[in-house]
């Protein structure tokens, strides 16, 4: 990863900007949403591969900063929502796309099903992913 950051630095102009945009493992909440409101019914379990990837990315940026390649200018967190019509569609997606990275525990799935079943007709199930965006400037 550090080598890749060196390559990116090489192809950037002086004072060029690097935007690092990525999800952070943080036991993402599972919510039932209706209208403008949402209620948390549980959280996903971060699996070791995802946590290790997260830590490696953070270490790589720290290394690039310590080498004087980039200086951090600005950083924010925001939410990136994945939303489905039903809990079963959420489960299917996670088994297809997030296997090995995030786990939907049976107890959380059952809580989502129970809450969704008695919620308003427009209710959806969603996962709120914690996102980090950082602006770096080439030194």
């Amino acid at each position, binding site marked *: *990863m550090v*080598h*890749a950051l060196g*390559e*990116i630095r*090489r*192809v*950037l*102009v*002086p004072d*060029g*900007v*690097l*935007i*690092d*945009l*990525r*999800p952070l493992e943080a036991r993402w909440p599972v919510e039932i949403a209706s209208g403008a409101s949402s209620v948390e019914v549980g959280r996903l379990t971060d699996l070791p591969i995802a946590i290790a990837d997260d830590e490696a*990315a953070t270490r*790589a*940026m720290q290394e690039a900063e310590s080498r004087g390649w980039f200086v951090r200018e*600005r950083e*924010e967190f*925001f*939410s*990136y*929502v*994945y*939303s*489905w*019509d039903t809990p079963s*569609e959420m489960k*299917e*997606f996670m088994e297809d796309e997030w296997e090995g990275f995030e786990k939907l525990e049976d107890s959380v799935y059952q809580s989502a099903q129970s809450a969704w079943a008695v919620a308003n007709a427009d209710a*959806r199930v969603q996962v709120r992913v914690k*996102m980090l*965006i950082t*602006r770096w400037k080439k030194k």
Partner: protein
Amino acid sequence: MTLQRDPQNLERKALHRFADFRDKRVLEVGCGEGRLTWLYADSALHVTAFDPDLDALRVACADRPVRLESRVALTGASARHLPFPHEKFDIAILAWSL
């Protein structure tokens, strides 16, 4: 399946708060199927987006809007050895890829 991603467009808003793409040459690292690319490419002067996953890249090529064909170049590459000259880009984006 009725998956919706980022229904409030918070990612697009964050991206445009953090970078001014006007008249900029942009390199996107790990563009995948181009989902992020289409959020900012209209504003940029030119975008070079790459990914080592050729299946994903094929989807990006198929999804690329006609209006962006001359502005967005999609290519297969690895970040370990970027096939570009020194100081070619104004902005680089690590798109969920670090």
